[in-house]
């Protein structure tokens, strides 16, 4: 009986796949096709995203990041683009150390893009 219950729970867990968060869905639709599931890019063709957190630490870096064509021309709103860039920075930053960058606001995105 206990085994049957465990099997049922495993089946339910496997069947009900959770939806991605909004920033992850935006990453999948807007960025992942070229930068890949791990943000590693393609050597010599598509740059990795491990440096995004570092770019967000300085005003010059933030301006440079918002000038990237795929970012600047994105069809996302300023607010969603800000959340997406923060998500990318936290997700793909190097393993050592915690990234420290000021939050990115929709207003700043609108000004820089």
């Amino acid at each position, binding site marked *: 009986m206990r085994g049957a219950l465990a099997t049922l729970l495993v089946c339910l867990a496997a069947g009900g796949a959770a*939806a*991605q*968060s909004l920033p992850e*869905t935006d990453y999948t*639709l*807007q960025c992942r*096709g070229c930068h890949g599931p791990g943000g590693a890019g*393609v050597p010599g*063709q598509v740059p990795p995203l491990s440096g995004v957190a570092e770019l967000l630490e300085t005003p010059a870096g933030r301006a440079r990041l918002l000038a990237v064509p795929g970012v600047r*021309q994105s069809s996302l709103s300023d607010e969603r683009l800000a959340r997406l860039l923060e998500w990318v920075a936290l997700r793909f930053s190097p393993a050592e150390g915690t990234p420290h960058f000021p939050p990115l606001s929709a207003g700043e995105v609108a000004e820089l893009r």
Partner: protein
Amino acid sequence: MSPFDALTERAARHLAMHFSRRSFLARLGALLAGSATLPLLPIARGAAAAASPPEDDPTRCEYWRHCAIDGFLCACCGGSVTVCPPGTEMSPVTWIGTCRNPADGHDYLVSYNDCCGKGYCGRCFCNRNEGDRPIYYPHRSNDINWCAGTSTNVYHCSTAIVLGVAAEAQPER
């Protein structure tokens, strides 16, 4: 004796005189074995294939995952909806859209990885463009050759790989 009883008696006597019990068992066995092999006949299989709806068939353009595909279906080219045919390699660079699965009503993220390295497959060409954007939005367009990051950019066919459940349908739908 009523006419109905007489008819029943005649039929029972006829059966008893002309058919042995072994004969009945043999015929019943043959009937059961024959019924079991019916689905193996080509006609039966053809009827079953025709009965499945096109949105469940990976070799059809109407297959639900193909809502944004532009190219030849790898399922018709020696591969499958998720695997490249022998002799080709899957491009790591791809375009991704969302398609609604009619079975559960969820929007799924679908990656249309191209298979590269041989000439055009030429079979099962499909051109459905839900969410496709003009080519000046290259990362949201299915019209460009996505055979990039591979050893050759020669296009053969396209897969349709589910990556997960989307938070919402793609905004361009």
